């Protein structure tokens, strides 16, 4: 082979590498949005679900998909596709997620148990964004149908805020006659919500539950309740300073309430985050901390003009919870 032939083939390989890099670049990040929107109309439900998951990971830059996702969250023939589309919306557009919540709230009163179960699942998939649905879900947690109560309790666990209302509903569910409902509630205390006060007594009684799974989950929940809240808050603050699992850490901080006062400086920083869901959760967490978050008042006052109306509403509620009225003339738009 001549030297020229050899170098021509090496050049061909470099060309192939460049082509592969271009293919990868074209199909990842916000560039993938048009393709994913197209996949939302695929006949195969698994393709539609995969597309919604992809859009959820992209987050705010996938704003162009909001109309499509909203349509799927409300009308897709497949229940999992509806739930996934709703879950995706919370990371892309909080207002659209609230629209989904409003659309599903009446379904909680439907005569058909399947419709009530499905509505609970969709509301749960919206996570903390569906906070205004908590009172309705608390009522549904006493539904005559076991599975509806189970789904309602799980949804309340996913929403997680406001802490006191969710906690009292979960604690009631610990006494439920149905195994699945007790299991859903005790699992929430074992793996997410910190038990305290009356809940600890109920969990202690559950150690003698006839179902061994529930008894062992109650033990895990009680062990978790013995953890030092300050060190838990410090761990969450550390998680918030990194890039991963911010949603989870912020929700956990909100659940800790006044015990998370040490996290306030990190929450103030998070109020400036690019992701609306993070700003919303930071405002919710500050509101849950209450008067102990006084140092966040200037940052929250600035947040009254946040571009996202859902965040703005949450900021105003946080200021009220801290005991500081928002400045007059704040740009407050109605939130559905």
């Amino acid at each position: 082979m001549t030297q020229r032939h050899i170098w021509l083939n090496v050049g061909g390989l470099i060309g192939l590498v460049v082509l592969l890099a271009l293919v990868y670049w074209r199909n990842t990040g916000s560039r993938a949005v048009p393709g994913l929107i197209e996949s939302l109309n695929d006949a195969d439900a698994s393709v539609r679900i995969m597309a919604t998951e992809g859009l959820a990971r992209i987050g705010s830059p996938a704003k162009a998909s909001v109309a499509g996702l909203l349509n799927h969250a409300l009308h897709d023939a497949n229940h999992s596709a509806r739930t996934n589309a709703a879950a995706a919306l919370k990371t892309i557009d909080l207002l659209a997620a609230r629209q989904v919540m409003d659309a599903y709230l009446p379904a909680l009163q439907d005569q058909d148990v399947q419709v009530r179960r499905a509505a609970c699942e969709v509301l749960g998939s919206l996570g903390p964004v569906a906070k205004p649905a908590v009172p309705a879900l608390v009522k549904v947690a006493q539904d005559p149908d076991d599975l509806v109560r189970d789904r309602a309790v799980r949804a309340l666990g996913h929403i997680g805020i406001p802490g006191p209302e969710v906690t009292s509903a979960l604690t009631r569910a610990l006494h439920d006659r149905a195994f699945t409902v007790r299991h859903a509630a005790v699992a929430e205390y074992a793996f997410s919500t910190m038990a305290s006060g009356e809940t600890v007594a109920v969990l202690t009684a559950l150690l003698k539950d006839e179902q061994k799974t529930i008894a062992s989950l109650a033990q895990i929940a009680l062990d978790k309740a013995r953890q030092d809240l300050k060190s838990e808050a410090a761990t969450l603050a550390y998680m918030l300073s990194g890039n991963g699992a911010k949603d989870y850490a912020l929700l956990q901080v909100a659940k800790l309430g006044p015990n998370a006062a040490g996290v306030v400086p990190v929450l103030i920083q998070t109020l400036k985050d690019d992701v609306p869901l993070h700003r919303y959760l930071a405002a919710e967490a500050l509101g849950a901390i209450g008067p102990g978050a006084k140092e966040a008042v200037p940052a929250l006052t600035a947040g009254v003009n946040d571009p996202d109306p859902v965040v703005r509403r949450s900021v105003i509620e946080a200021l009220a919870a801290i005991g500081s009225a928002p400045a007059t003339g704040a740009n407050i738009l109605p939130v559905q």
Partner: protein
Amino acid sequence: MHTTDNHSRAILTLAFYWGSILLGMILPWLLLLAFEISAHQRTLAQAFAYVRLHFFTPGYNFFLIGILNAVPFMIFSVFLLFHLGRTPVQEPAFFSRRMAGVLGALLLMFGVSFWTHVTTLVHPDAQGALAYLFLPLVLTVLMPLGYAGGRLVGKLWTR
């Protein structure tokens, strides 16, 4: 005579060069297709749709798995292109000996790559994805060992 030999050697070299790059890249995708067909009872069309759907999906990234697997083969293919392509025309024995080394390295690399991908698919694990990251490094280390082994076997064969 020399011209004909030189031409066939060039074709063989180029076949190995492009063949190892392309096979290195598509080997994980072919194994995924075979796994989906055999383990999950999908048709070829369904398995193809599954692999295509997960090509760029975070958490799956089948495209990146193929590219990562191809990297050591790309490095080795450049070596083999210069190594075989610049063999003196008047020394046919040189070419055979070098070809034995190249074959040894490629067999070892493809064997280890095949085994790793099959094992990762058959025994899925939370840390399984680490295999895809470490495999290129392992294959790069194995290159000279496979080459030396191939040369040795070639030498014993022609003795």
